[in-house]
C-alpha cells in the first residue's frame, strides 16, 4: 500500500518491514498449529491433506492479517478530526498498483491450486480415487472382473439408518468396520435407499454413497486405533445417529478377528435408529412424520459404537 505514497522515507520502511516480518512469523506459527486442529492422522491420505491445509492456513493467515493491519492502521491513524468536514486528498486509482494486486492473488491462488492438484494426483495414485459405475445386476451377484480384484475388499451397505460391512473373501459381516493397519483396502459403497456419506474424519476421506450406483473406493489405514465413521450426507430423521466405529488393528489381530467372526451366528447389528424409533412410538407426542428405519442388519459381529474413540 505504501508504494502509492510518492517518496519512501527509511523509518516507515523499516517499520513496515518489521511488521511484515512479524506477520510472517505469526503465519508460520499458525500453519504449524493447524495440525492440532485436525484429528489424528490414520491413513496415507491424512498427511497429504494436512500438509495442504497447513500451507493454506499459513498463506491465509498472512493475507488476513495483512488486510486487517491496513484496516486497523487506517482506523487508528486516518480518522477525521472532530468537526473536520473536509474531504481527503482525492486519489482515484493507480494502474500500477491495480495490476500488482491483481497479479499477486492470481499467483497465490495458482500456487495453491498447483499444490492441490499435485496432492490430488498423489491421492489418486495411492488409491482413494473412486471408480463409479452403474450398479450392474450381474456384478451384484458376485462377479468382479479379475483386474479389479482388490487385496481386501469390503462391501459397505448404507441404509436408513445403519451401516453394514461385508467381507466377501471371509464370509463375515459386521456393523463395526475392522481394517488391518498398513494394508490397502477397497470398499464397494452401495446404498439401499437414499444418499449417504461415507466419512471417516481420521482418514480425511469422504465419499457420497449414491443409490443406484456402486462406488469403488480405496484407502490404506496407517495407525491402529478406534475411529468414527459418520454419515456425512443428510439421510433423514436419524442421520445424526447413523455412525459406526472403525477399528484399525494389526494384520494378525485382523486375521484372528475375521476367523472368530466367521464362526459366530448371525444376530441383529447396531442400529440406534431402530431403538429410538421404538421408544418414540411410546410417546404421546412423537413429533413429525418419519420414514421408519430399516430393520437392523443381520451380522456375525454387531461390535459397538459407544466405546471411547481416538477421532
Amino acid at each position, binding site marked *: *500500500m505504501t508504494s502509492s505514497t510518492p517518496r519512501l522515507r527509511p523509518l516507515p520502511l523499516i517499520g513496515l518491514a518489521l511488521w511484515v516480518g512479524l506477520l510472517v512469523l505469526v503465519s508460520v506459527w499458525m500453519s504449524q498449529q493447524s495440525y492440532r*486442529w*485436525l484429528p489424528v492422522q490414520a491413513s496415507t491420505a491424512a498427511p*497429504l*491433506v494436512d500438509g*495442504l491445509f497447513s500451507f*493454506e492456513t499459513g498463506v*491465509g493467515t498472512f493475507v*488476513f492479517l495483512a*488486510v486487517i493491519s*491496513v*484496516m486497523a492502521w*487506517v482506523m487508528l491513524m*486516518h480518522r*477525521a478530526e472532530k468537526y*473536520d*468536514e*473536509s474531504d*481527503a*486528498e*482525492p*486519489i*482515484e*486509482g493507480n494502474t500500477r*498498483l*491495480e495490476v500488482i*494486486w*491483481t497479479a499477486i*492473488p*492470481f499467483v497465490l*491462488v495458482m500456487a*495453491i*491450486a498447483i*499444490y*492441490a492438484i499435485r*496432492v*490430488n494426483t498423489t491421492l*489418486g495414485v495411492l488409491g482413494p480415487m*473412486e471408480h463409479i459405475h452403474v450398479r450392474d445386476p450381474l456384478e451384484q451377484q458376485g462377479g468382479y472382473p479379475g483386474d479389479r480384484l482388490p487385496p481386501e475388499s469390503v462391501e459397505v451397505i448404507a441404509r436408513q439408518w445403519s451401516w453394514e460391512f461385508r467381507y466377501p473373501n471371509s464370509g463375515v459381516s459386521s456393523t463395526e468396520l475392522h481394517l488391518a493397519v498398513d494394508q490397502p483396502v477397497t470398499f464397494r459403497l452401495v446404498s439401499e435407499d*437414499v444418499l449417504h*456419506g461415507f466419512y471417516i*474424519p481420521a482418514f*480425511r*476421506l469422504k*465419499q*457420497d454413497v*449414491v*443409490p443406484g450406483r456402486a462406488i469403488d473406493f480405496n484407502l490404506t489405514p496407517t495407525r491402529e486405533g478406534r475411529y*468414527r465413521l459418520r454419515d*456425512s*450426507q*443428510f439421510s*433423514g*430423521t436419524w442421520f*445424526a*445417529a447413523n455412525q459406526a466405529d472403525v477399528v484399525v488393528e494389526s494384520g494378525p489381530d485382523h486375521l484372528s478377528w475375521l476367523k472368530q467372526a466367521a464362526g459366530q451366528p448371525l444376530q441383529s447389528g447396531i442400529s440406534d435408529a431402530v431403538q429410538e424409533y421404538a421408544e418414540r412410538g411410546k410417546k404421546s407426542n412423537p413429533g*413429525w*412424520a*418419519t420414514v421408519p428405519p430399516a430393520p437392523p442388519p443381520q451380522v456375525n459381529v454387531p461390535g459397538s459404537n459407544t466405546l471411547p*474413540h481416538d477421532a
Partner: protein
Amino acid sequence: MTSATFPASEPKPSWTRYFSFNTDAKVIGIQYIVLAFFYFLIGGLLAMIIRGELITPAADLVDRTVYNGIYTMHGTIMLFLFIFPVLNGLNNLLIPTMIGAPDMAFPRLNAVAFWLVPIFGTLLIASFFVPGGPAYSGWWSYPPVSIQNPLGHLVSGQGLWLTAVALSGVSSIMGAVNFVTTIIRMRAPGMGWFRMPVFCWTALAAQTLQLIGLPALTGGAVMLLFDLVAGTSFYRPEGGGDPVLYQHFFWFYSHPAVYVIILPVFGIFSELFPVYARKPLFGYVYVALASFIIVGLGLVVWVHHMFPSGVAQWMRNLFMVTTMLISVPTGVKVFAWLGTLWRGKLRLTTPMLFCLGGLFNFVFAGITGIMLATVPVDIHVSNTYFVVGHFHYVIYGAAVMGVFAAIYHWFPKFIGRMPYEGLGKLHFLLTFVGANLNFLPMHPLGLMGMPRRVSSYDPEFAFWNVLASLGAFLLGVSIIPFLLNMVSSWVLGPRATHNPWNAIGLEWLLPSPPAEDNFGEHVPTVISRPYGYGLGQPLVENQEAIERELNLQEARA
C-alpha cells in the same frame, strides 16, 4: 408506523399505502424490507432452537424430526424470505433514485413480484401445520430423501416447500427483468455506463446471474415436484433416475445465488467507503468491471459443491481452478476498498462500522473459501460445520452486515428521519461480537469432523458448540437495539436533510423522502463520475441551484 404524527408541511401519503398494491418503487422497497425483517425474526427464532438443541450433545430439546424440519425452514426462510427480499427492497429504493429514473420500468410487474413474497411466505410457514410437518430435507432438498414423503399425502411439507420455492423463483425473475431493463433503459441523461454508481453495476451483475441461473433451479425443482407427487422417476434410482442430476441443477443456480447476495453488498461497500472516508472509490472502473468477471466465473464453479458426490478427477481439478480464480476479481475489490480507506478522513459512523466489520468478516470468509475450493481439503471438510461456518461468515458476517450498513445509511433518505447513532453502535457491537462468537467455533468443529445437519453429536464436540450457541443467543439479542432504533427513529427521529452524510450521488439531490416520481420531468444531466470526493467537480449540471432549492425547502419546513 404512525407517520400520521409527522409535522407535515405537505399532505403526507397515508401509511396504509404500505399495505396496498402500490406501484411506487420506494413504497415497494420499504414493503420488501419490512416484510423481510418479519421473516428474519421467524428464521432467527428457528436458529435459536437449533443452537439450543446443539448446546448439548444429545438430541434432547426437540424430536429429531422436528429438528430436521426446523433447520430446513431456517435455511429456506433466511434465504428466500429474508436475504433475497431485503436486497430486492434495497434495489427498489436505490436503483431508480441512483440513476434518476422516476420508477422501475414495469411498476405493476414490480408490485406483483413483491406481493408474491407474502403469498409464498405464508405457504411456506403454513407447511408447519400440515400433517407430517414441514419439509425436512435441508434447503438443498436432495432427492431421494426429499421425495420419500413418509405419509404419502398429496399435500406434504415438501410439496409446499417446492411450490413456495418455485413462486419465489417467479417473483425473482419478474424482479430481475425489471431491474435489468430499468438499469439498461432508464438512466439519467449523461449517465454513461462508467458514470453509473457501483451499486447499480453490482445489482445489474447480480440480476443477470438470477436470469441465467434461476431457471435451471426452477426446471430441476419442477422435476422434483413431479417425482414427489406424480410418481415420475427423474431422480428416483429405482426407475432409472439419477439423484446426482438434481445436484447439478440445484448448484448451477445456488452457487451463483451466493453471488446474487454478495454482489450488491460489494456495491454497498463501494458506495459507503468513499462517503465515510471522504475519498473517491479507488479504481472505480476496475471495481465496476470486476462484478462481471465474477458473474462469468460464478457460472462455472458449481461442481465444487459436489466434490464428494462422485465426479471425475478432471472435473474436480477444473472446478477447483475456476473457483480459485474467482478470488482474483474479489481480491481486486477488497484491495480497492483498502485503497479507498488509505489516507482518507474516516468517520466511524454506524454504517461505516458495519461496512468495516462486514469487510473483516468477508476477508476471513474468503480465506476459508480458498481452503474449501481445494479438493483434498474440501473432501475432508465438505458437509461439516466448517462449511456452515464459512457460509455464515459470508451471509451473516458480510452480507447481512452490509445490509445493515445500507439501512442505516439510506434510512434518512427514504424515511426522512435520522436513526440514532448510540443504538446503532450498540447494534453493531453486539452483531460483530455475536457473529464471530457464533460462527468462528464452527470451523474447528468442522475440522474435527462434525457433520452439518446433525441433531446430536459426540461429546468431544461439546466445548465449541457451547461457545457457538452463546454467540447465537448474543446475535438474537443484537436485533433488539436494531428494532428499537428503527421503530423509534421512524416515529420520533430528528428530521433528515436531503444530504445528511454529505454524500455524492443522484439520490442525495432529492428531498428526504423523495417525491413519488423522484426527479419527475426534471432529471438532472450527469456530468462527472460518481464518488468525486475532494475533486470539487459537481456531479450534475446546475447542482448548486438544485441544492439551494432543497435547502430552501428544508428551511421552510
